C-alpha cells in the first residue's frame, strides 16, 4: 500500500485556486520531487498534504490518504500525535524556525519529550547521534541557533525532522537559501539518510537540477496543476510535456564548449481568473488550436501522468 495517496486535491485562497485537482501517490522509501516556477502552487500543495495550510487557505475538495486514512477531515488535535512521529516537515525558513532562545539540545528534547519520552542519558545519546548524521560536531548541541551558519541550521532542522523516525517528510525548498556547496552537501546527506531510514518524502524545489539529483520520481507543476509526472530517469531522457522540455533546457552544462542562456518567455496565467484551455498554451512553442479551447485532462498510467493535448500525437506534430 502506498504511504501517501492524494486524490483530486483542490486548494484555494478565496478566489485563487492555487492547487487544482492534484493526484499523486508515494511508496515507502520513495522521494517524489515537485518542481515548478514561483507561484505554481508547490508550497500550497505541500502544506495542504501535511495539513499546515494557513487561512485563508482551504482544502476545497479531495482526499489525502496517509497509510489509508484520510487526513482531510481530521482536526488539529487528532493530527497532533502524528506530527513528528509519522509526518514531519523541513521548510526553506527551517533554519529560522528554530527557537532562537533555546539551545540545539533543548529543541531536540522538546520534540522527544512530547512524543516519545525517554531518560536524560538516552536523550543525550540520541541528540549526538542525530547531529553526527548531518555532519555536525555534537559540541554544537549546547550552542544557540545564532551561533551556527545558515547551512548548519538547516541541517539541524533536518536532523530534528528525523529524530522520531517519521514515515513521511515534507521538504519545502530546504536548500534554496543556501550556497551551492552547502546545497550539494545537504542533498548528498539526504540521499544517505533516506537509504538508512527508508522514509518517504516530498521534495519541493524550483531548482530542477537539485530535484533531479535527489528524487526517484518528479511531478512538474504549472499554474496549480501537475502537468507531468515520471521517474527521474525517464523525465530526463524523454520529457513529454513541452513545459518540462523547456525547463530542462534552462539548465546548461557549464563546461560545454558553447553555452547560451535559455528561458521560457512569457508569464503564467492569473490563478484568480482561469479560462478554458491548457494554462501553458500561450507560452508553448508547440501549441495547436485545441490547446487554447480545451483543458487537457491529466491522464495517469501506473506511476506516470501527463496533461497535454499533444500526447500520442507526436508524429503528427513533428511532421
Amino acid at each position, binding site marked *: 500500500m502506498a504511504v501517501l495517496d492524494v486524490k483530486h486535491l483542490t486548494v484555494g485562497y478565496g478566489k485563487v485556486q492555487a492547487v487544482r485537482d492534484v493526484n499523486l501517490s508515494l511508496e515507502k522509501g520513495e522521494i517524489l520531487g515537485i518542481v515548478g*516556477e*514561483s507561484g505554481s502552487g508547490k508550497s500550497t500543495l505541500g502544506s495542504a498534504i501535511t495539513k499546515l495550510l494557513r487561512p485563508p487557505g482551504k482544502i476545497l475538495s479531495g482526499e489525502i490518504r496517509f497509510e489509508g486514512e484520510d487526513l482531510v477531515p481530521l482536526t488539529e488535535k487528532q493530527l497532533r500525535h502524528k506530527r513528528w512521529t509519522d509526518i514531519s516537515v523541513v521548510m526553506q525558513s527551517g533554519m529560522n524556525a528554530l527557537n532562537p532562545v533555546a539551545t540545539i539540545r533543548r529543541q531536540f528534547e522538546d520534540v522527544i519529550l512530547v512524543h516519545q519520552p525517554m531518560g536524560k542519558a538516552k536523550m543525550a545519546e540520541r541528540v549526538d547521534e542525530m547531529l553526527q548524521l548531518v*555532519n555536525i560536531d555534537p559540541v554544537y548541541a549546547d550552542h544557540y541557533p545564532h551561533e551556527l*551558519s*545558515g*547551512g*548548519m541550521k538547516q541541517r539541524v532542522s533536518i536532523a530534528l525532522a528525523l529524530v522520531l523516525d517519521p514515515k513521511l517528510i515534507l521538504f519545502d525548498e530546504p536548500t534554496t537559501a*543556501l*550556497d*551551492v*556547496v*552547502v*546545497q*550539494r*552537501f545537504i*542533498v*548528498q*546527506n539526504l540521499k544517505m539518510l533516506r537509504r538508512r531510514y527508508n522514509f518517504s518524502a516530498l521534495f519541493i524545489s*524550483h*531548482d*530542477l*537540477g*537539485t530535484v*533531479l*539529483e535527489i528524487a526517484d520520481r518528479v511531478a512538474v507543476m504549472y499554474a496549480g496543476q501537475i502537468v507531468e509526472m515520471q521517474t*527521474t530517469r525517464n523525465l*530526463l531522457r524523454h520529457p513529454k510535456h513541452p513545459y518540462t522540455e*523547456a*525547463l530542462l533546457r*534552462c*539548465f*546548461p*552544462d*557549464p*563546461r560545454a564548449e558553447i*553555452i*547560451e*542562456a*535559455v*528561458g*521560457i*518567455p512569457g*508569464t503564467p496565467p492569473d490563478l484568480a481568473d482561469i479560462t478554458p484551455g491548457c494554462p501553458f498554451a500561450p507560452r508553448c512553442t508547440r501549441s495547436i488550436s485545441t490547446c487554447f479551447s480545451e483543458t487537457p485532462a491529466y491522464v495517469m498510467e501506473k506511476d506516470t501522468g501527463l496533461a497535454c493535448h499533444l500526447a500520442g500525437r507526436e508524429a503528427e506534430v513533428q511532421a
Partner: protein
Amino acid sequence: MADVILSLSQVNKTYVTRKNGRNRNVWAVRNVSFDLKRQHIVALVGESGSGKSTIAKLITGVERSDAKSGSILFEQKPLAEWRRHMREYRRHVQMVFQDPYAALNPLNPVNYAVGRPLTNYKKLRGQAREQEIEQILQQVHLTPVREFANKLPFELSGGQLQRVVIARALASSPKLIVADEPVSMLDVSIRAEVIGLIDELRTQAGVSFLYITHDLISARLLADEIVVLYRGTVVESGDAKTVVREALHPYTQLLLQAIPNPWAPEQDENFDMSLLERTGDDTGCVFRSRCPHAMEACAKTAPTLQPHGEKQQVACLLYSAESREPVNS
C-alpha cells in the same frame, strides 16, 4: 590603459565587530586586485560571506576601504578624488540589487521610478522627460511602453520588476553598473531574459558591468572575465570560459563539482563531504583547511595571484614555480 574603466589594486576592508565584549576583526576583503575593461562584464563569484557585496559597496562608495589599503581607480581617477564629486560619480556608477521587490517603492508607478533619476541627474522635465522614460523602457523591453509606464510594482512579474530596476539604473546614463546577484531571486525560466538584457546593454549601450553571483553557470553565460573570491581573497581569475572549463584552483573546482549534474549522477557520489565549512586560522592559504591538496607549505605562506598561461591567474602553491605540477587533479 585607457580601456580599463575600473581598477582595484590591493584593496582591503576590515570590519570590527564586538563579540562577548571583545573586538574582533573581520577581514571581509583582502588584497583584492582586478581590472574591468570598458564594455566588458566581469563576474565576481564566491560563496556566501566571501566578500562580494563588500567589494560592491567599496566600488559604489557606500563603504570606505581600510586606511592602509591600495586603490580603486574609476576612469583612472582614485575614488578618494571622486569623493569630492560624489553626485557625478553616482551618475556614472549605478547599482542593481538582488531583490527587485525590495528595491522599488510599492506605491510608485514604473514611470516615477525611472523618471526620478532623469530629474535628478539630467534635469529633464515635461515632454523631454517623458520621451526619455519611453526610450529607456524600450531599451529594457518593457513594451508596450505606455502601458508599463503606469503600472505599479505588484502588477509586474519578478523578471519585469528587475527590468524596471535596471531601467532606473540606466536613467542616469551610467558607464558602469554593479549588479549584486540580479537574477538569483528569479525563476530559471525568467533569468535568461535578464541575463540577455544585461548582455545587450553592454553591447548596445556600451555599459560595463560588475556582475556579482554565487552561480558559476550564469557567470560563464554572461561574463568576459571571472574573478573567484574565497574569504575575501581572489583565488583565481581570468577569461570566463577558461576559468570554468580549465579551473585551476581547488576552490573553483569545488564550486564546479557542486553544480548538480543530473545526467551523470554517479559523479555526485564522489563529492567530498569533508570539504564543508571548515574554518582555518589566518596564516597561509585561506582555502587550506578545506583543500584536498593542502601541503605543509600552504600553512606557511599565503600564495599570491600569479599568471598561469595566457588567460588565467591563480593563487595556489600547486602552480607556483617550486612545484609546477599539481599533486593530483
